């Protein structure tokens, strides 16, 4: 070995040693964020990631002396892929927290891994009620479908809607929405003459909507994933159902802020219930929406972004509470009962269920300055997930 090489080797060794030293002083706190960044659910991934990064940009990347590192993985919303990525993140990257989960099957696929490895799993999007019961390490920062459907079932009978046909996509969240809306609505004295379930990949809504039109209910309750929601709404208008005296009520997924502007005037007047609207009139939300749009080329944040933003806050709070040393169970315990003012309003993580308790708002689509917004007109305060009360 000549002199130059020896010098090089020494330099390398020194560099490695100093790196190792830094590692020992305060290893980074790793957050493994698994999201669908491509494929059908890609908007979810895009929104959640953008919001998580916004939170870090606004609050600094060091908490209680630990540097927070975000590792984003794309699961293309295939549950077996989510599981594999989670495994890699736990074993190879030794992440402190798993987060993300665009769809219910993904969250359920990772749940056993979270339990075995004692890694907290912050669910930021998936909204089937049962998810938090799948592992004691799951904490949810998004919402549940029963939560928002029940609010609508309480509001409707008070506003002259006594007879409702339900139309949902035939999968976990859809069935949740149907079941909880129907039960509460019937409890409130309403009638549900027909419950329609459409295949998740349904090409044409015409026959279902025609059926609803012939049944002539006071309103049609809809839950479908946001992309399909626009199609339902357009065909609803095209079929002249609003003119036939049928109202369209839905969970907020249908008038997703991410897509609302492209839906056109067919969406105006649709009443939905949800936990977040980009038009929520609070100073905190105005700040959030402005910062989000500035950082993302004018993209409007939707409820998925909210889940990602508050999910990161939960993680930050847990690191702070445990003095930067917490792991596994300690982190989950720190998240339990966490209470804060989010851009969506006051939020509490229920200590028993680890699910989110929040206000659910009733909104109506309105046109303001040439843009469509979900404008809130009523609120039901502190709604717990009704899926867990039995």
């Amino acid at each position, binding site marked *: 070995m000549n002199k130059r090489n020896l010098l090089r080797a020494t330099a390398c060794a020194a560099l490695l040693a100093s790196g190792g030293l830094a590692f020992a002083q305060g290893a980074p706190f790793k957050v493994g964020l698994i999201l669908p960044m*491509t*494929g*059908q*659910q*890609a*908007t979810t991934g895009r929104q959640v990631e953008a919001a998580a990064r916004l939170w870090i940009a606004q609050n600094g990347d060091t908490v209680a002396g630990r540097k927070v590192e975000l590792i984003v993985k794309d699961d293309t919303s295939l549950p077996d892929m989510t599981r594999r990525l989670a495994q890699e993140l736990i074993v190879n990257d030794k992440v402190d927290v798993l987060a993300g989960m665009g769809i219910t099957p993904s969250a359920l696929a990772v749940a056993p891994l979270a339990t075995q490895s004692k890694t907290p799993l912050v669910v930021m999007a998936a909204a089937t009620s049962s998810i938090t019961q799948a592992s004691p390490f799951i904490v949810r920062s998004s919402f549940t479908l029963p939560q928002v459907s029940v609010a609508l079932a309480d509001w409707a009978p008070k506003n002259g809607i006594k007879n409702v046909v339900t139309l949902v996509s035939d999968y976990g969240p859809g069935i949740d929405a149907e079941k909880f809306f129907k039960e509460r609505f019937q409890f409130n004295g309403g009638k549900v003459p027909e419950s*329609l*379930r*459409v*295949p998740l*990949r*349904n*090409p*044409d809504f*015409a*026959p*279902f909507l*025609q*059926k609803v039109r012939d049944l002539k209910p006071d309103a049609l309750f809809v839950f479908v994933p*946001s*992309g*399909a929601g*626009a*199609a339902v709404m*357009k*065909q609803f*208008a*095209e*079929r*002249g159902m609003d003119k036939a005296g049928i109202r369209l009520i839905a969970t907020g997924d249908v008038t997703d802020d*991410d*897509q609302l502007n*492209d*839906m*056109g005037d067919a969406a105006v007047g649709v009443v939905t219930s949800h936990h977040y609207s980009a038009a929520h009139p609070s100073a905190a939300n105005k700040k959030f929406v402005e910062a989000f749009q500035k950082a993302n080329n004018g993209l409007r944040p939707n409820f998925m972004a909210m889940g990602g933003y508050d999910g990161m806050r939960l993680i930050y709070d847990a690191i702070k509470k445990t003095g930067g040393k917490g792991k596994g169970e300690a982190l989950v315990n720190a998240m339990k009962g966490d209470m804060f003012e989010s851009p969506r309003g006051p939020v509490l993580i229920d200590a028993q269920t680890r699910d989110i308790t929040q206000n659910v708002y009733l909104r109506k689509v309105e046109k303001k300055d040439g843009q469509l917004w979900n404008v809130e007109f009523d609120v039901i305060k502190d709604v717990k997930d009704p899926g867990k009360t039995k």
Partner: protein
Amino acid sequence: MLTILFDGIAYGMLLFILALGLAVTMGLMNFINLAHGAFAMAGGYVTVLLMQRADVPFLVCLPIAFVVPALLGAVLERTLYRPLYHKPHLDQVLFSIGLTFMAVAAVDFFVGSTQQLIQLPQWLRGRTEIGSGAWTLGMGHYRLFIIAVCAALTIALQYVLSRTRFGSRLRAAVDDQRVAAGMGINVNVVFLTTFAFGSGLAGLGGALGAEVLGLDPTFPLKFMIYFLIVVAVGGTSSITGPLLAALLLGIADVAGKYYIPKLGAFIVYTLMIAILIWRPQGLFSRGAKA
């Protein structure tokens, strides 16, 4: 009830125009082109992008949605497809399904995976109702438009295939390439034109369907099944076969979903199995006649 029939016909017509190009390539040219849906998607995206980003009126978009996939089809036929004409069907299937996945990924990358929405002109949005009670016929104007366009195309196409010089050349080229070439027919040009035309039709179908069927990058995979059912049930030797098959399936699908919503999604498959057991070559085919 008449409304259901009407919706079914409109849906069937849409399926027909989407599947027609496939019936042509698969039946006439004997090439299994599973990437057919990708051309339909190309037409859909041409329309959506022109309308969203350049404010081109819908009616102007339709011919462009025909021309762009047709040109694309012509280029691909010349470069990628032609060498595969004489390869086994399995090679063709693998090749074209690969092409489909590439198209899906490419659109996902360049345009994004969200559902694309278009705004139809006002005159296509309304609805006309005739009659009352059980015999009400409610016609959405857009669906009426689809039926009109598809009917016109069918008649024109039938005329081209059975009455014109090009039609007879095509049929000759399909039946026996060597003899046709010996008679002075430029088989390559005939096939190139036919393939491009089929792709163009798919593109037009995609453009018309974007409003009703929705449009996202998984479009070719989502509807591949439907195209294949139409072609399999209708047979591949004429265009009347796929037309009747598409209408039958469209009406059955819509009526099934209306009357028995719980079973609705399966009616199409059940019908296909029943028909194929009865006539394995499809409803109309040379195979069944012989």
